[in-house]
């Protein structure tokens, strides 16, 4: 969608309840467009839930989520937002190419985009193999490739590089930066701290709340830590001195 100014995603007092408890507490945040934003936080803090709310598949208790200028989940957004779930979502009984060709028909792109997406995730050698017979990391890349097919404006990636070796991670991050340079907005959740340093901006979450937001250097400066991992730990760990 052209003509969007301001952030690609904005949440306003977003509250989500799952299984009877509040998972996101009145969350206010913004994701700048045309950049890579990393979403970090301990396991169970609500990263996946937030991403689901942004792509419009999560029931929301209160607040608003605005994506590319429209309410999250609007039908028009389905052509512009792509989502890669944390667990790879592909058909195990189809080959890599058959999976991608099916999703390509849905987003109405051709064979050249299928080939490009396979190359972007480094799966050209496995293109003819059944997705169910691939390794976990390979299957995750099929899932990622399906999201790259339609050249979305907003890419929402839930831990896309889990289980991948450093060489592959390096390559994928190069691809992510190329996409961002081309104007795509990326929102990437991650546990891997050295990946945080590759993001243009970071959102740090804990227990369904936003702890901090800023560029990696800003967060380092604010916490006085040497690296992102230190900054993360000092922000995420409850302050002992308050208790004693």
């Amino acid at each position, binding site marked *: 969608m052209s003509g969007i100014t301001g952030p690609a995603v904005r949440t306003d007092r977003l509250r989500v*309840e*799952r*299984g009877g408890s509040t998972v996101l507490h009145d969350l206010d945040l913004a994701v700048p467009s045309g950049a890579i934003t990393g979403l970090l936080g301990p396991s169970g803090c609500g990263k996946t839930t937030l991403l689901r709310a942004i*792509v*419009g*598949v*999560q*029931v*929301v208790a209160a607040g608003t989520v605005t994506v590319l200028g429209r309410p999250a*989940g609007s*039908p028009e957004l*389905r*052509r512009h*937002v*792509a*989502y890669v*779930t944390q*667990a*790879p*979502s*592909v*058909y*195990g*009984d*189809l080959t890599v190419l*058959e999976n991608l060709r*099916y*999703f390509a*028909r*849905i*987003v*109405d792109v051709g064979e050249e985009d299928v080939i490009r997406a396979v190359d972007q995730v480094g799966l050209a050698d496995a293109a003819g193999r*059944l997705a169910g017979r691939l390794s976990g990391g390979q299957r995750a890349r099929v899932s990622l490739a*399906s999201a790259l097919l339609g050249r979305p404006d907003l890419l929402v990636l839930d831990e896309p590089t889990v289980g991948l070796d450093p060489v592959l991670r390096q390559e994928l991050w190069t691809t992510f930066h190329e996409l961002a340079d081309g104007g795509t907005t990326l929102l990437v959740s991650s546990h891997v701290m050295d990946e945080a340093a590759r993001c243009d901006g970071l959102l740090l979450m804990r227990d369904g709340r936003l702890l901090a937001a800023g560029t990696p250097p800003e967060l380092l400066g604010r916490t006085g830590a040497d690296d992102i991992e230190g900054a993360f730990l000092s922000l995420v760990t409850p302050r002992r001195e308050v208790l004693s």
Partner: protein
Amino acid sequence: MSARITLATAARVLRQLRRDPRTLALLLLVPILLVTLLDWVFAGRPEVFDRIGVPLVGIFPLVSMFLVSSIAMLRERTSGTLERLLTLPLAKLDLLLGYGLAFALVAVVQASLVTGVAVGLLGLDVGGSLLLVVLFAVGNAVLGMSLGLFASAFAASEFQAVQFMPALLLPQILLCGLIAPRDAMARGLELLSAALPMTYAFDALSRLSVGDEDAGRLLLDGGVLVGVTLAALGLGAATLRRRTA
């Protein structure tokens, strides 16, 4: 709604079925084996085989299609591919009609095979038009498929999904007139059976078995089956939620 996406979905479902030859074989062979067994059971009484053989040729495919389609849809849900599809520009009916189209094609093969074997090899004596018998058998299989797709919305696991088969289909088999004539049932049961789609499938097929081709009745029966099929697909689409908790 988009014909492109519906057809792509049907092709994808058929490709997945082809990768699973055992399921395909079970779908096509089990009804044939059951009709053969029925023929043996009534070996000395061919008039009984003729009377219930034709309706059962239509009911076996309904049951197997129900099971296969409800499990297929459930797998779509548990594998996460349903969530992915629902974030894409795909109408919910595209998905259901895609499944419908794919399984309808399988149903044509299945119903033709079972009718062919029953009539050609086992000597089933069909009083009425063979083409109409196949048509109603296919219609039944498609009905079973759409009921299965709808039922899968209420199943959170394979265990639950398979239980829907006895829960939803066995009462219909008991009440449709196959076990006991409907007019011999208690009034309440007779009325209940009038609200169940299999009653109309049985009515049409048992008429055809004795060569009664009352066009008005057959049109009514066929109309009810098509109507329930479309209603189940529509309800299936309505119960498919893009947003979940």
